[in-house]
């Protein structure tokens, strides 16, 4: 049942103490081509699940030993970025409010309709992919920024501040020609095609480095 369909297919973690429910839901989810990994206990799940996988978590609120809400809080505290969909047998407004406040992506009542669940899962996966992409981009930018020399970072900062080559040369006591060289180098190292792209990708990084 847990055989991956493709290595790139998103992975759904399903946590419910009831075996029949677990099996039925995982079958339903797998019909739309999502991989499912099922867990009977939240503790084992917390200890063993693949945090790097792309996908989402489906969590039953009512479980023996530990409440689904507590598990949700722990996941958020540990920085897990997979969206969490809460399932409950009898959801009260208060419980719903608490779940969203704790960071749930969705709150569904059991028995859950297939369309509602699948739509929620697909939304969650899309959201997670986007989050990861954004992280990826940021990560790449940081790596490239790290390759710059001290002088190149200074020049980059001034470029982003909107100074011309001449002005930069005056500020750093360099000839405009040297500035031009640094500029070409840093554009190459950062993989930027245009000034606009450079500013869009690196402005926050530079601010953070200078701040």
């Amino acid at each position, binding site marked *: 049942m847990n055989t991956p369909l493709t290595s790139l297919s998103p992975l759904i973690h399903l946590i419910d103490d009831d075996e029949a*429910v677990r099996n039925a*839901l995982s*079958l*339903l989810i797998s019909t*739309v081509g999502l991989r499912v990994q099922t867990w009977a206990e939240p503790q084992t799940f917390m200890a063993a699940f693949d945090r790097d996988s792309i996908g989402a978590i489906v969590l039953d609120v009512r479980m023996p030993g530990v409440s689904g809400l507590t598990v949700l809080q722990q996941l958020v505290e540990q920085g897990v970025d997979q969206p969490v969909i809460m399932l409950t*047998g*009898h959801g009260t407004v208060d419980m719903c409010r608490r779940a969203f406040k704790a960071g749930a992506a969705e709150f569904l009542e059991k028995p859950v*309709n297939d369309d509602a669940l699948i739509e929620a899962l697909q939304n969650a996966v899309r959201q997670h992919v986007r989050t990861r992409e954004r992280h990826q981009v940021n990560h790449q930018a940081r790596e490239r920024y790290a390759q710059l020399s001290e002088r190149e970072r200074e020049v980059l900062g001034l470029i982003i501040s909107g100074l011309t080559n001449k002005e930069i040369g005056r500020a750093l006591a360099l000839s405009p020609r040297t500035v031009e060289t640094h500029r070409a180098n840093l554009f190459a190292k950062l993989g930027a095609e245009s000034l606009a792209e450079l500013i869009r990708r690196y402005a926050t990084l530079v601010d953070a480095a200078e701040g």
Partner: protein
Amino acid sequence: MIFMDFFMCCTVSEIHRFRSHVVWVAAAKSVAPCKNGRMLKMRKSYGLWILVWMAVSLLGCVWVTQNEIEQQRNAFETDARIVHRLLSQRAVQHDAIMSTLALLQSSVDASRPEQRLSSVYPQILAVRRRDAGQQWEESQFARAAEQSRAVKRPVLADADFTNGRYWMVFSAAASYAMQIDMRGLAQWSEWPMQPESSPVRVTLESAGQRFVLQPGKGDAHGWRFDFSKHLAAESQPFDVVAVRHVGWAQLPWGWMLAWVGLVSLLLAGLLAAQRQRAARRRAEELLRLGQVARLNTLGELAAGMAHEVNQPLAAILANTQAAGRLLAEKPPDIETAREAMKHAVQQAQRAAEVVGRLRRSVELPDRAAQLQPVDLRAAVNNALYLLEPQLRQLGVTPELAEAASPIVHADPVAVEQIIHNLLMNAMQALERVPPGDRKLILALSAADGLGVFSVRDSGPGIAADVLPRIFEPFFTTREGGLGLGLSLCETLATRMNGTLTAANHAAGGAEFVLRLPMTGQA
């Protein structure tokens, strides 16, 4: 399954409570820890009651005593004034007599008419005369005669209080002396007191001498009233002195006792009323607690049931929907779909099993053996008593028409439960009409070996589409209602070989009729 067992326990105990008022006992127990505190408070409040009792009793007694003393004093002073007036009248009379004798002096009468005075005035014991030029042998008389001539009025010559007599002398041309019996001074026919038995002592006093006119009595303890005044005749310079003692024994003990008794009775009545009110309040509180506990338990029961039935339902839904999707694939995955359907069937059986287990454990124990004679009227009164606060709040006074007072063969707790629920139901219907139109008509009767109790309200009545379903479990028209009350009533009635029917009355409003077999008929 952990939940399942827990909620099964809950279910059973809930039902037992529902039926045997264990809830009341439980509620009473929860009150127990503050029992010591309450006892302390009670003792304290008793102290206060006793203090109030003592203070009020004492104040009343003091007031009664003061009032009595004041009255006695007034009576005493009135009597003393009368005595003074009577004695003064006599004394003045003596002056007049002597003046008249002096006038007679010119025509010397050998018959000596002055000697006949004693027969007219018994207090005059003797009269003596010295004509002009003659002298009194007794030195007091001679001195008095001289003095009398100087002041031109009679004067006292010799007073002998020990023997109760005195002499007066008046001299004009001739000189007369007159001896008076002091006892005769008092006009006993007009005397304001009983001379023998009166507690007032009356004396005449002059220059250290004292003559007792009335002895009086009473000990020297307690209160003392005094009166002292000169006689209104200068010729007889005596003081009229009256004294009265009022002792402890003469206080109005009867009134005081009556007052203390009255205060005790009043306070005891108040105390009893207050205690009754407290007991009533406590009973109401217990009832409310019982209702809350019941609601909480019901809520828990519902939550547990929901979870237990929800799990298989969730599995069934997911399995069937997955099967639908698998069959819609091109080509359809028939094998997996069949597997999913098999799981769905298993889960449906599981749900049925949950419901069955629930019903079996909720199943009422056979109560036929516990049926006993129940006085329907007493049960109705009991329910009315418990609901009185709510009825008062609604502004409804139930009318009870009693054609008979049937004794039915039933389970007393179940009967009270039914009556209570029917009344609650009627009250909820009455809430929906204006206060002026609220009427609750109860009737007790007997027919065909059945005791009949009916509840009719002047509410909006039962809608035609609701009437056939009114005893269905979980059927309710009330927002937030569980829909179990009437269904439970009907089940209970049927179990006791009775019936519960609902109808709309011709005069408007709903009417519920409970029929139960009477004793000896079942």
